[in-house]
């Protein structure tokens, strides 16, 4: 995380201890669910509902993990999720950077109006568009495959376009003029000048898109019907469908499914925060 450039009041003396004590308490409350989840994921069936309940498993049962992940075809679910996630990342990066460049640099009549119109779609929640989307795709016979989940990404996303536009605007116009002087076309400028200088913002779009695709539940629920097409989130919800919930398996599978998102968060932390910083600049 960034260091603060501004001096701020630091707690001193007893206040400092009070502050740290409070921090530790709140941190424990935030960690408790995750720790309880790990602990439960290692308990054998008979211990899950033991009275009195145990905080830690008496003898950790590591087999819960392989068993949970093979009780349903999670490998298949993971591949499905990855296909959707990677395709939507490509879709968003392509479509959003082109549109964002247009809004950032090119001149066209009504540009301001269209920009506001595009931003206003941010207020249009997915549940409002899902019914017509479903109707359109079912009329086209494209239900029960990945296309309805991937194709919309190639038509852009208002939030990412906004994010990229803010970042493109920070790039000095002189660089662009110099490239044009050397005879570069608009697309060459975008590819060779703008995009390489906007890596943090592009990374942010990729990460957000990945997280959204990885965690999306409503979209796959509506469009995917065959179990062989299910994503990880749908697979996880199948554990709930069973009459008897196998909590240890459920916890184990949830943890494993969340790991990639945690890993990406740590790897991308820096560029991610720089990318978000751009949103603060004036529209």
């Amino acid at each position, binding site marked *: 995380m*960034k*260091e*603060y*450039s*501004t*001096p*701020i*009041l*630091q*707690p001193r003396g007893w206040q400092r201890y009070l*502050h740290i004590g409070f*921090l530790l308490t*709140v*941190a424990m409350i*935030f*960690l*408790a*669910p*995750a720790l309880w*989840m790990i602990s*439960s994921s290692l308990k054998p069936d008979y211990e899950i*509902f033991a009275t009195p309940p145990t905080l830690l498993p008496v003898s950790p049962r590591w087999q819960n993990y392989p068993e949970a992940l093979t009780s349903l075809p999670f490998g298949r679910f993971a591949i499905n999720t990855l296909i959707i996630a990677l395709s939507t990342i490509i879709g968003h990066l392509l479509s959003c950077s082109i549109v964002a460049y247009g809004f950032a640099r090119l001149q066209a009549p009504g540009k301001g109006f269209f920009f506001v119109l595009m931003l206003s779609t*941010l*207020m249009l*929640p*997915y*549940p*409002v*568009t*899902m*019914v*017509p989307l*479903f*109707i*359109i795709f*079912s009329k086209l016979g494209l239900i029960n495959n990945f296309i309805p989940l991937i194709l919309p990404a190639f038509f852009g996303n208002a939030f990412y376009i906004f994010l990229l536009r803010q970042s493109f605007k920070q790039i000095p116009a002189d660089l662009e003029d110099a490239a044009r002087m050397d005879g570069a076309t608009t697309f060459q400028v975008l590819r060779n000048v703008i995009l390489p200088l906007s890596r943090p913002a592009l990374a942010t779009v990729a990460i957000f898109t990945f*997280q959204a695709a*990885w*965690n*999306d*539940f*409503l979209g796959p*629920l*509506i469009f995917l019907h065959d179990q062989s097409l299910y994503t990880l*989130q749908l697979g*996880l*919800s199948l*554990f*709930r469908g069973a009459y008897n919930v196998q*909590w240890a398996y*459920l*916890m184990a599978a*949830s943890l494993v499914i*969340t790991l990639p*998102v*945690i890993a990406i*968060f740590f790897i991308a932390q820096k560029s991610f925060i720089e990318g*978000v*910083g751009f949103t*603060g600049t004036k529209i």
Partner: protein
Amino acid sequence: MISLLTSFTDWDLLTDPLWVGLDNYRNLATDPLFIQSIKVTLAYTAAYVPLDLAGGLLLALLVRPQFRGIGVFRTIFYLPTVFSGVAFVVVWLWMLNPNGGLINLALGWFGIEGPRWLLDPKYSLWALVMMSFWGWGRSMALYLGGMQSIPGELYEAAAMDGAGSVRQFFAVTLPLLSPTIFFNLVLSVIATFQSFTSAFVATNGGPLDSTLFLVLYIYRQAFEFFHMGYAAALAWVLFAIVLVLTLLLLRSQKFWVFYLGERSK
């Protein structure tokens, strides 16, 4: 546009749509489940949004001072936000389980017998509100970003005038943070109106429709009963509410949001 047209029809996708004019909207007024879903959604938003705004701010204030290891705390508070989707709900289903969950176990240490949470219509919606604290890290990150852009001279000037930390918070931090609070407020309102996964996975709207969110009701009408026209009408009501609320919030800006560099009147 298709959505708007559909909302005037009676359509099950198999047969041709039948034009019914405003009937779908007329039926809304007498549909007890629609009224219930509006009530649930409004109650959830009214409880969730202020808690998220205040909770995120509290966390941001806690982790703002610089000292060794503060990054660890920031990460701890932010990390639960990656547990979105089904995994988030699953963790809390288990935490709130009346028999094996940690919450009732902990309450038991103090001799309190916990309620049945998600299984009790009196508590189910509040249980969903309660578990949302685990997502406060998102607004915390936004506030930290906002606090970074507050000029340090303002604090120096305030300290010079003898303002203590409480006074500094109300006189400097809070007003200069109001644009961030506003941004967060609008985002949270729009997001809570779209709540679906928690109710769908945790309670499926129950018990006794106590957690029947509007989006869940739209989903049922569209994809369980195949009332596409009625679902589209419901979706337009949702959009209208979000739009009106957002516009009201935008108008309210001039009364409480303070932009640095703007002339005060």
